[in-house]
């Protein structure tokens, strides 16, 4: 198994221009991703922001709430209109009080292709093999606790739903 990269290919039933705006307008990106940036995306430029709950899905937003205000930054790489948008970030840089700046980043690329049904979007994130193994393992441990929390929340939710149904 390739441990260096992730690739996702998705058909979106929306025009290329719509998807492009959702990706490269930093405000629109923020709406679905769940982040508020300090300004627009500019090639080869670092942009700071903070995590905020997504406005797209209330249930997800609720889960994102504990992370509200957490600093988030990306360095935009390339912007080729309606074809390629790429940036670099520190994956899983969610632990408070840790300086990730000296660590390697991963590269995220969004490649768009207009097709009759809409837009074919390919998302890749690569460079994971450069991330220290200790950091990767730690991120996972942190998430395993995340899983436990999520499972607990869901169980509460299911119990509540069952009681309401009775």
């Amino acid at each position, binding site marked *: 198994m390739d441990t260096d990269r992730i690739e996702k290919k998705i058909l979106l039933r929306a025009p290329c221009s719509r998807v492009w705006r*959702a990706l490269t307008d930093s405000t629109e990106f923020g709406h679905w991703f769940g982040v508020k940036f300090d300004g627009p995306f500019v090639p080869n430029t670092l942009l700071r922001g903070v995590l905020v709950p997504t406005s797209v899905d209330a249930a*997800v937003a609720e889960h994102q709430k504990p*992370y509200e205000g957490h600093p988030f930054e990306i360095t935009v790489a390339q912007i080729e209109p309606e074809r390629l948008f790429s940036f670099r970030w520190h994956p899983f840089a969610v632990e408070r009080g840790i300086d990730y700046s000296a660590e390697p980043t991963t590269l995220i690329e969004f490649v768009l292709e207009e097709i009759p049904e809409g837009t074919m979007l390919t998302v890749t994130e690569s460079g994971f093999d450069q991330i220290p193994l200790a950091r990767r393992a730690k991120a996972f441990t942190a998430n395993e606790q995340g899983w436990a929390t999520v499972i607990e929340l869901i169980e509460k939710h299911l119990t509540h739903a069952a009681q309401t149904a009775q």
Partner: protein
Amino acid sequence: MFAALGDETRLAIVAQLSSRGPRSITSLTEGSSVTRQAVTKHLHVLNGAGLVHCSRRGRESIWELDSHRLQDAQRYLAEISAHWDAAIDRLRKFVED
């Protein structure tokens, strides 16, 4: 960030496998409004992320939560992959609505 994993049906499946142990798709769909086909699809997504696996018991497939099988590096990637799936779901909602 883990909270970004946003599909409620998928989370409910994981919750069931966690609290009630390994079980079949039939058992997972019992008393639920979600179709067998939908549950199967979600199980395959979870399987792709390395979070569940299945084994045969007679004619049935038994699904089991599997958070310890993968190596750290692979599990890390599976986690991030799940985040992307969730983020892309939100992007889809955002551009298709």
